[in-house]
């Protein structure tokens, strides 16, 4: 009988580059930057790493296929290295694989590293799906972009819950304003300036009703984690300066949302299911009360708003009330995107999942300056949503400090 991942794996070291338009840095530079910080934090030597997992998504404009970019760059000596891709859950997948490798007993110390170099396309926004989205999609997909496909949520949500498009626009403006406020004090964040809700609502329309500030930063960056068993962690970290993994869940669309008739177009079925499994695995009874902080996948502000409901923290059709009440603000009950989120920290796809864990990790270990410290943080949740609302991959990770 499976017993889940809870307390079987510890994170002993993490590293994360500054995210942003890293014109001066190659993907290899970013990998080294994250790795050096991570290795120093773990306090081990490179030769102690027994296996590694690399997460990259847009490999065609990034480092190319397979795992060799990681082993070549870090000069990993003929150890097993695997590359993973699962849309925007890619970084979390690399972390999850590393955790499972440890939990299985196959390895003691494993590296997970995610990297993405998105700013070599020559234009703003994400690279087009192109043939990478599959031949069928290239022949039958709508002439769409990622913001547009997520914007679809808003019109369906408005119709289903009778929440006006204006109310939605206000709520998502608050979401982005909050992330901007949080990102200001984070030196590693891509976008670091205060933006008001008025500015957000007046910004140019990208895809109705999402304006410029409803869309996250497209950034370069890398993040890394070293995981091991709790026993080894205790032996290495005399002051218990590590966190343990409480849950790792992934849910992937079965085709029901996009092909069958039972999906309303106004929520993420995967998130709704993965979060319940994650709470069960982590033994969380009441997430609204027990979770200290969250990093959710705010690729677009509307995604964050609806995710609050799919995480079963806000009631269906009522997220805007919690948002406007400041429930998810820095000084709210469940602060969200305390490092700026995808919105302001940035979103180098392969790195993002690991970056989120990094944000929780540094809070749990109380390594952040006072102005952005969450009081009594014990349990943090990260969430990724890759793909599009009707067909996606959701990952949820819960970590804690005992």
């Amino acid at each position, binding site marked *: 009988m499976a017993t889940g991942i809870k307390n079987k794996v510890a994170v002993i070291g993490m590293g994360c580059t500054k995210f942003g338009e890293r014109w001066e840095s190659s993907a290899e530079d970013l990998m080294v930057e994250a790795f050096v910080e991570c290795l120093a934090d773990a306090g081990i030597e490179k030769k102690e790493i027994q296996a590694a997992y690399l997460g990259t998504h847009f490999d065609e404009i990034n480092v190319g296929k397979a795992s060799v970019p990681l082993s070549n760059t870090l000069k990993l000596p003929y150890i097993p290295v695997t590359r993973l891709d699962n849309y925007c859950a890619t970084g979390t997948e690399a972390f999850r694989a590393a955790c499972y490798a440890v939990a299985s007993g196959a390895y003691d110390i494993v590296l997970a590293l995610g990297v993405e170099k998105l700013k070599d396309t020559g234009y703003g926004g994400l690279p087009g799906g192109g043939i990478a989205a599959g031949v069928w999609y290239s022949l039958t997909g709508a002439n769409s*972009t990622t913001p547009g496909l997520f*914007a679809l949520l808003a019109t369906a949500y408005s119709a289903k819950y009778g929440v006006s498009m204006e109310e939605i626009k206000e709520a998502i403006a608050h979401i982005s304003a909050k992330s901007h406020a949080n990102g200001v004090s984070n030196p590693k964040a891509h976008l670091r300036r205060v933006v008001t809700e008025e500015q957000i609502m007046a910004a140019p329309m990208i895809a109705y009703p999402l304006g410029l500030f409803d869309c996250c930063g497209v950034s370069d960056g890398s993040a890394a984690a070293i995981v091991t068993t709790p026993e080894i962690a205790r032996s290495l970290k005399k002051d218990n300066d590590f966190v343990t993994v409480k849950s790792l869940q992934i849910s992937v669309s079965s085709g029901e949302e996009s*092909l069958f008739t039972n999906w309303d177009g106004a929520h993420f079925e995967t998130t709704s299911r993965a979060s319940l499994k994650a709470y069960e695995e982590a033994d969380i009874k009441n997430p609204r009360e027990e979770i200290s902080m969250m990093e959710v996948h705010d690729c677009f502000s509307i995604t964050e708003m609806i995710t609050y409901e799919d995480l079963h923290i806000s009631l269906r059709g009522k997220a805007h009330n919690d948002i406007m009440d400041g429930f998810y603000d820095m000084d709210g009950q469940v602060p969200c995107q305390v490092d700026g989120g995808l919105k302001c920290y940035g979103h180098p796809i392969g790195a993002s999942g690991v970056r989120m864990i990094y944000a929780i990790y540094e809070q749990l270990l109380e390594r952040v300056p006072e102005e952005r410290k969450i009081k009594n943080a014990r349990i943090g949740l990260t969430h990724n949503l890759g793909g599009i609302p009707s067909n996606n991959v959701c990952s949820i990770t819960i970590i804690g400090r005992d």
Partner: protein
Amino acid sequence: MIGICSYGGYVPWYRLDRKVIYDAIGWINPSTISYAKGEKAVANFDEDSLTMAVAAGIDCLKGCDRSLIEGIYLASTTMPYKERLNAGIVSAGLAFDEHIRAADFSGALKCSTSALLSAIEGVESRRLNNVIVCASDCRLGKPGSSQEMIFGDAAAAFLIGDQDVAAEFKGSYSTTYDFVDHYRGAFAKYDRQWEDRWIRDVGFEYIIPETVKKFLEKYQLEMNDFSKVVYPCHYGAERKKLNKMLGIPPDVEQDNLMTEIGDAGSAQPLVMLSQALETGKPGDKILLLGFGNGCDALYFELTDNIIKKREQKGVSGHLAQKSSIDKYLKCLVWREILPADLGPKAEEDIITRWSFHWRKRKAILGLWGSKCTGCGTVQYPPQRICVDPDCGAVDEMEDFLFSDKTGHIINYTGDNLAASNDPPAIYGTVQFEMGGRHIFDFTDCDLDSLAVGQAVEMSFRRRSYDDQRDVSGYFWKAVPMKEDK
């Protein structure tokens, strides 16, 4: 009895006021002011002669059993492929059985009446039952030219058979001359024409009367036997002259729709015929003339079936639904006359993989999905394993056609980031009433007019154009159902 069993038409949603053309570019050729009256129909950026042929075919076949169609003839001078059967694309769009006769008719503008004759002869010979003829043209006039003023885009379709005939075919007479009033070489984008006066004096005033005379003699008829005479000729004064020469009274002359559509090329006589049939009465005799490098004269007599209630929108129904374009340059961009900068995302190189396309041809061109014979769930695209989580049957699917089904909008957006000839790119999820859903592009609509729950129908469109390899790619889009204006 053999003849027209059903008929339909198609006029694009968009119209361009000729004054808008003149105001924009009349300065280069001020004489075009003489044509700057009324409006012309212009194909949307995602339409061409094939998509309009499919639209006219769909209209024509409403209430008809498509499985009985044994032949499809496409007539057009603006087909996107010189090699690749254009009628084959239209046939797939109309979801016909693949065991079908299909042919392209092109070259002369009278190719449409020739296609109609061939269809009639096919049925007469008893080698084919039920042949559909689709005529469609989308000709380009050079910016500033009189052709730009004159040409309009439209299509018509006729079902030829021997059951429930509404317009019985009674006879024909044809002439063929290498009369080069205008022409388009193999690599030309625009027509070149000889002097208008010569076209009128020698073309219309000799070839048409000569053909009509021989036709009337052959069938021992007189002009006053006909209740309608349908003939293409865009010159207003020349029509008056011809009516006088031929003895056509004003109420017998079928309107050539110059101020509503324009000259629709090969489709012109059939668009006019389609509209003429809408108001026809049993016993009416109709003379149809196709003109271009000669003349085809065909004659029909309407039966009692002509007054049967029909579901077709027809030419008149389409004329009643429209939206005006206020920007001349928009049309130039849509027709790729003016290469606008659509941004780097538009440069993405996507090859049409023909072996892939072949495997999926029915799902792509016909919008065929599948229906689970176990639980009845319909799904698009076709699945091997039923998507109903309570069913999950493996390989128990039968073909299910979505293109003729209506649906409603679940969600939608207008996307300014997507590379489009008509931003914002509007798209969203369509839920078909019988089940099945897909994220489709929406077309012939404005973002402001959309609402969740709104009804949509499906339209075959040119989804992409690969200018490196000259490939027009086709798929289906959703069109919000229209109210008459």
